[in-house]
């Protein structure tokens, strides 16, 4: 094992004296990744009870998911809400990020924290507040209500991602485009937008996930025909450990992994 003696850093610390660091890192990564993956084999188990590894394999829990009207409706609601959230939060957040980035005004220092407050405000508070407001606005149990609240949650992520892209973008290019005869809008559309499009796509993906994974607000303001998937899962979990949840969870892990892979590929292309 000669590599143990080789130096791991520029200051000539050998790998040997860093083994403990590798061990901790490996354990922490395992702690982060492995527990979640346990639901995947569970979802293919034939048994009602938890067995690992399952003694018999089957697709019954996937059948019970895909053949249930209730679950399918909830999935449809979640997908609709997530897509609409991405479609609403991404342009709104991009516009706001651009406006704040370009204006250098006194109000910027107020508007930015205001737009970021959804990150730090306890979600449960937003949940009951929004519920209280929606009762009066007749938005409880509506798709519109879910989309508005989820867009508000996703907005700060879009603003942060787009702002950081604008920071690493050379705004002189937009100035140059304007000197060459483009209005502000066309300069943005023709020159800036194509260059920050990966950040905007990432922001859209994040918005989608924010909505798709959101539980607390959905618990308060979604229901009936417009129950979200997460709301139904949460309620099902309170009652018993239904292995159908494992099947749904596996599907959700798959969706997250695909979106993550997509964002990584987008990120690589950017470089």
């Amino acid at each position, binding site marked *: 094992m000669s590599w143990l003696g080789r130096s791991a850093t520029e200051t000539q610390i050998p790998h040997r004296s860093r083994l403990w660091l590798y061990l901790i890192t490996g354990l922490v990564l395992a702690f982060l990744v492995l527990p979640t993956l346990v639901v995947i084999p569970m979802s293919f188990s034939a048994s009602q009870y938890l067995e690992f590894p399952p003694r018999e394999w089957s697709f019954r829990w996937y059948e019970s998911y895909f053949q249930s009207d209730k679950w399918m409706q909830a999935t449809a609601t979640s997908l609709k809400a997530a897509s609409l959230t991405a479609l609403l939060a991404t342009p709104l957040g991009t516009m706001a990020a651009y406006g704040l980035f370009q204006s250098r005004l006194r109000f910027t220092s107020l508007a930015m924290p205001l737009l970021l407050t959804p990150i730090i405000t306890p979600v449960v508070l937003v949940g009951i507040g929004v519920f209280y407001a929606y009762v009066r606005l007749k938005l409880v149990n509506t798709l519109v209500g879910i989309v508005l609240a989820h867009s508000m949650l996703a907005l700060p992520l879009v603003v942060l991602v787009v702002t950081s892209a604008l920071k690493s973008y*050379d705004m002189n290019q937009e*100035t140059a485009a304007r000197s*060459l005869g483009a209005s502000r809008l066309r300069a943005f559309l023709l020159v800036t937008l194509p260059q920050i499009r990966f950040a905007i796509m990432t922001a859209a993906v994040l918005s989608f996930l924010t909505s798709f994974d959101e539980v607390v607000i959905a618990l308060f303001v979604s229901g009936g025909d417009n129950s979200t998937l997460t709301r139904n899962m949460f309620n099902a979990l309170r009652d018993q450990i239904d292995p159908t949840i494992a099947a749904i969870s596996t599907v959700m892990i798959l969706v997250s992994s695909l979106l993550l892979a997509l964002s990584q590929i987008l990120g690589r292309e950017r470089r």
Partner: protein
Amino acid sequence: MVRAASLPIYAHQIAKSYGRVRALDQVDLAVRSGEFLTLLGPSGSGKTTLLMVLAGFIRPDSGSLRFGETEMIRVAPHKRDVGMVFQNYALFPHMNVASNVGFPLRLRRVSKADIAARVEQALETVQLAGYGARGIEQLSGGQRQRVALARAIVFEPRILLMDEPLSALDKQLREHMQIELRRLHDKLGMTTVYVTHDQREALTMSDRVAVISQGRVLQLDAPRRLYEHPANRFVAEFIGESAFLPVERTGDSFFHDGHRLKIRDCPVVDGNCLLMLRPERLQLLGATAPDHLNILRGTVEQVVYQGDSFQLQARLADGSAVALRGVSTQDAMATLPRPGAPVMFGLAPEDTVLLADERRK
């Protein structure tokens, strides 16, 4: 060949403040049609601010700006029809060379065939014919510079603005591009306003130079006039090297250290003056002092060899430090006095330039 008409620029009482800082302090500037005018000043002097006002990217607090007869001060930048070259070129990395250069033409809805022809023409003008399909990343610094220039002139603007366009290039390429830019200007004939902090660049390229400091134009003159007769000490120090000696005034006579100075032009200023000494205008004298020269006596402190030239630093009897620059021929180097030796300088009357001494007014 791109060939454009040109327009004069009249900026009148342009003022711009950032908080309590006056970036532009009631600036007046007239640029003649077809002229190559340079805004020269240290960083923070307001020269770039003034250029951005001309381009429309900085909105002044007040003032008037005319291109020819047309008032432009409230016109949006994209409607000013001004070509501009940026310090970092600001080429669009997501477009190839031809798309970059064709960009202003596409905005003006020029037909596709015409765009192709005019882009190629512009690239030819900057000696990059055939580079259209290249990506921006594939170009060297100097080539990017040329593309930026082609893009700024392809739509035949009557005014061309350049913001330190050569500052990112290394010294040799910069000097080469200075001459090429000037040649291009002479060929195209558009009114050009050029910003730089490099005084040599300004003197090399310009018809006239405006020296700017603290938001004000201190002097606007042809390079030679600027160098020979700076309006004040700041301009003299900023352009070229110089030492200053105090001069006492009695009527129309001027004295340094008790000796009357022989001068050609009487300065128009009142009160006490400063004598400006350019190192290359001082003459190193032998034992005899010719009558037609002003004579300065001192002691050699140091001799610095600088390759093509040498610099001899000396201290005069009244304590002032002066420097002399000479061509470093073998003869000259062999006969230079040693540190500690007495030395005598001569200064011709036409090189004896007196400036107002603001501090002793």
